[in-house]
């Protein structure tokens, strides 16, 4: 029953509320981008991976640490880029939109 556990519990509980409330009224169209964006956000595990990458000495530890960082980076980078690409589709691109509007 350490203080840090208690405070962590508060943070956990409040973050659940925020997570729930913040997206409670998302339109269907945005389900996939939102899923993808949330996916990118948990990519922050890369920071955890960096911090413990060398926690275990020896070759096995190094391999696991290396792998953890690679996987975390894939998650965060791929997640944000793919989300951005999806969302780009929702915006009319000026180049193409111009001639169309002339009609």
């Amino acid at each position, binding site marked *: 029953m*350490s203080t840090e556990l208690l405070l962590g519990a508060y943070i956990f509980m409040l973050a659940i509320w925020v997570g*729930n409330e913040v997206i409670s009224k998302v339109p269907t169209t945005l*389900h996939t981008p939102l899923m993808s964006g949330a*996916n990118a956000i948990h990519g922050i595990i890369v920071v955890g991976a960096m911090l413990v990458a060398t*926690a275990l000495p020896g070759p096995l530890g190094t391999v696991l640490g290396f792998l953890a960082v690679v996987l975390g980076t894939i998650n965060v980078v791929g997640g944000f880029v793919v989300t951005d690409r999806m969302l780009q589709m929702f915006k009319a691109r000026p180049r193409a939109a111009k001639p169309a509007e002339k009609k």
Partner: protein
Amino acid sequence: MEQLREYVPWVYFVASVTFIFGLKGLSGPTTAQLGNRVAATGMLLAVIATFLETQVAEAWLLILPAMAIGTVIGVVGARQVPMTAMPQMVAIFNGAGGGAAALVSILEFEHATHAATGQGLGFAGVGEPIAILLGLMIGGVSFSGSIIAFGKLQGLIDARAFKYTGQQVVTFGIFAGMIAAALAILAAALTGTEIAPANVLLVLVAVLALAFGVALVMPIGGADMPVVISLLNAYTGLAVAMAGFSIGNQMLIVAGTLVGASGTILTRLMSKAMNRSLGNVLFGAFGAAGTATAGAKTDDGRTFREVSAEDAAILLGYAQSVIIVPGYGLAVAQAQHSVRELADLLEGKGIEVRYAIHPVAGRMPGHMNVLLAEANVPYEKLFDMEQINDDFARADVALVIGANDVTNPAARKDTASPIYGMPILNVDQAQNIIVIKRSMKPGFAGIDNELYLDPKTGMLFGDAKEAVGRVVAEVKKAG
């Protein structure tokens, strides 16, 4: 450096705030892109700040190459993938995150127990080992589950629901074994009573978690994969939060919990949009991309009417109001630009053209919106099902392009149909109906569509892009 390092936790704090803003932004159409970028910026800040930590700075030779490799894979994957394969891509990225969380949990476990001497495994309280074990199990399930989901969507694994007798027993056995091994570790950590070496048990937990992820996703059909991916996404969030608890990093707790909570809500919203309960998705049989009911009904003697591109052009040319119903076939054929061209032509003649977007048309939520937006179809012309469903009765022509299940009247009437109860577009109420598809074959749910036998319906066969192109040519010829 020394002083700067003091501020690292506060950079993490700021990053946590950006994640919330990002998530909030992502839930509104106008703010979504900004939100995504805000979160990405916070993420970048956090990563940079992490290099100030001694153990990270010292290991740059290990970490920087790893990050470079990850970046290349991530960027190339995200850039190269065609729009239709987006769900798979999300699955694979999600799996990577789950795997990372599981590895972090393992490393932290070894780190904590490494220095242990004497009784117990060297944990201070009960909190840390629990968090580590949860992070490992949830992360592992998410990793293997996501890979299976990817394989099914990509066609590497048979997309149909995989079932065998005794399946439930096996799945439950794996789950029970995993929990038992985890409890054994916990007992060792708390009381010092070791049944087996902790490392062996840990590997066992990891292996069983991976097996459980496979067992969980294999019996689910490809149709339900978007929902499953969303659920696994929430799992990874939870695993990250647990990793945050075990290494004492609040930013990870906040980010992971946010995704866990919002992902759970999102999963529920998605299954609701497909008119299924989450339990039904996970344990139901609909996903079987079945052949069960297919082909049964066409034999009642009714027949369909084929029309030519010219017939279709004439019908459209005399209409006052046209509603276009896009579906998966439009995405496959990449016919969005041709459709836009047709719509422009008709509008040039003073004909009102609108698009009716069913919430689950295509293969992911928002699929049709994304496609049509790519072809610069103005946002105001896209109507949600609820908005436009009453207007079909007043439309002269409903032009169905590569859509099938979302127009199937069986969902309304036929209680035996696997899609019974799903709200559908009232295409059958339009004055005239033109359906563009390649054959009489069924769509995703694998069932026939009696709409095609309706006397008001004309079938225009062909690949969507090519067929729409023919109609465009005929319309141009006529006027």
